[in-house]
């Protein structure tokens, strides 16, 4: 091998020639072939790969929808109807794209929950987690702007309400809103820029996902026990073990996805968005898409404009400092007998907020929203920091390999398990 060339291990002469000059084949082999992966993953670990697939589906269907869509206030709604009625398989792309957004949020919410439950945000994976929160924020922006494009009543009034959130900020608020609109109301300039950004952001997400995966491959994956990989006996090569396991998850994911697209394509949408946008009339009951409901409930729980907006943004921004709010060195909730109940309760509070966000802002729903909002923040800012000091965690297993062989739990010292590589 001459100087300056990568020492490729591939036998095929063409692959070897390319790989020696640009080791992409070696990289794929190292990162997705032989990559040592903890051998005790459960199905929660499918959801990162599912999110990646979902992103690719959204980009593919989105590019083809953009070929037929017209970003103009007088033509947008009709061009979407034309996609549904006249364009070959246009109905399929639009329903896959619209329900794909819902699937994306389902998958990513499970992925985030996995990270919280098994402590994947803790050292050394803090930056990995922070990049993930950035991806989530980009996803929210992209989904919001995409929902505006069909230019139905919910599109228009969703855009009006969400952009008006920024008017809550003193002094600069109104200027920010005018800047977002490009005018004095949501109108054609707004639609044009939202289309441009809705096209751009998925590629930005793709870039940040690359950073997310790159950071993951430095620290390696967390696992359900939350303990570090100690020896090769704790790991398996990614391929074929986790390519196969991810494929099983993929089949289930596609069954759910296809059920939505083919049997209930409008179940998660809102009927009012099939009414063309009318700047003169607001729909009686205006709600965002289901995946934004918890934050919407937090916004409405606060009887103060600026306070509601700050708390709503804060509900996600607080995730950025989660690695430092959680003071416990134990990652997995399996070994945190008290914290796991509080985290489950937080999950329920999130669900309550999602439920209340879809209901009218009155009576019991306001009370429930306030209680759930209070607990949402109490978990991050009070309970989690204190529990790290007060809670006595269960004893951790010595290694991943031991509980796998002996059915879990810590082992007495000296009872060394047989290594796995001959299994």
């Amino acid at each position, binding site marked *: 091998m001459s100087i300056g060339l990568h020492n490729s291990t591939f036998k095929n002469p063409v692959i070897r020639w390319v790989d020696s000059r640009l080791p992409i084949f070696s990289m794929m082999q190292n990162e997705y072939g032989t990559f040592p992966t903890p051998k005790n993953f459960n199905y929660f670990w499918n959801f990162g790969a599912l999110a990646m697939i979902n992103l690719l589906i959204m980009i593919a269907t989105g590019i*083809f929808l953009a070929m037929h869509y017209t970003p103009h206030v007088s033509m947008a709604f009709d061009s979407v109807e034309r996609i549904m009625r006249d364009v070959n398989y*246009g109905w399929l*792309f639009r329903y896959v794209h619209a329900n794909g957004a819902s699937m994306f949020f389902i998958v990513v919410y499970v992925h985030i929950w996995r990270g919280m439950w098994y402590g994947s945000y803790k050292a050394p994976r803090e930056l990995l987690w922070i990049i993930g929160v950035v991806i989530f924020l980009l996803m929210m922006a992209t989904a919001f702007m995409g929902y505006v494009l069909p230019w139905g009543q919910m599109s228009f009034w969703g855009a009006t309400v969400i952009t008006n959130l920024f008017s809550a900020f003193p002094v600069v608020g109104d200027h920010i809103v005018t800047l977002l609109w490009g005018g004095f109301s949501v109108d054609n300039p707004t639609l044009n820029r939202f289309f441009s950004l809705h096209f751009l952001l998925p590629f930005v997400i793709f870039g940040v996902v690359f950073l997310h995966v790159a950071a993951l491959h430095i620290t390696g994956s967390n696992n359900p026990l939350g303990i570090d990989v100690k020896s090769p006996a704790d790991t398996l090569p990614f391929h074929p073990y986790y390519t196969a396991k991810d494929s099983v998850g993929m089949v289930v994911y596609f069954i759910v996805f296809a059920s939505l697209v083919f049997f209930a394509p409008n179940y998660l949408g809102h009927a009012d968005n099939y009414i063309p946008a009318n700047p003169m009339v607001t729909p009686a009951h205006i709600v965002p898409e289901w995946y934004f409901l918890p934050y919407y409930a937090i916004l409405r729980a606060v009887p103060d404009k600026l306070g509601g907006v700050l708390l709503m943004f804060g509900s996600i921004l607080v995730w950025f400092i989660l690695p430092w709010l959680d003071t416990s060195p134990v990652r997995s909730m399996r070994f945190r007998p008290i914290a796991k109940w509080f985290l489950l309760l937080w999950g329920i509070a999130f669900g309550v907020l999602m439920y209340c966000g879809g209901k009218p802002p009155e009576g019991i729903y306001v009370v429930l929203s306030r209680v759930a909002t209070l607990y949402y923040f109490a978990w991050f800012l009070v309970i989690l920091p204190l529990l790290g000091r007060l809670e006595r965690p269960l004893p951790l297993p010595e290694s991943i390999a031991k509980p796998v062989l002996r059915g879990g739990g810590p082992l007495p010292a000296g009872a060394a398990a047989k290594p796995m590589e001959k299994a």
Partner: protein
Amino acid sequence: MADHLAPAGAPHAAGEHAADGTTKRDFLILAAGGFAAVGAGAMAWPFISSMNPARDVLALSTTEAEIGAIPVGGAVTLMWRGKPVFVRHRSPDEVQAAATVDMGELRDPQADSARVKAGKAEWLVVIGVCTHLGCVPLGQKPTDPKGEFGGWFCPCHGSHYDTSGRIRKGPAPANLPVPTYAFTTDTQIKIG
């Protein structure tokens, strides 16, 4: 490639080898690969299909026009499928010139009678797109150059068409095509 990624000694016992050296894994790779190829094709089909003309585009595939008002020697340009269609009311001299050309002179030999409707030889209907590279030839307006053969002249690369719309000189390979059309009345045509 998959073989050496499996843990040593795991699924690849010597007993699985058939006499000719093939293994169960060869079959699995072939079957899985074939299935994946069919799946990829099935997924690609709607994407490719969506780029073909949509139903509303196909619905615009006919154009009707009243042509009774065109004087002898005059012409109008209609739009059909986004393209210009030349309708020329030919004079008896022009019909005569088109009908008496020696077939040997033509690059794309076609009798004038095959390019008009029987009994309607004064009406020539052709698609007004040069068969070279798609420009619209001149010759519709009285002031336009009509080329050396009295038909049309393409200004882009100098193709000359005769009074039957046939290529006579220049780089174009074929005659101006005659679209599918019919006379719905004596003075009305339907193209497409």
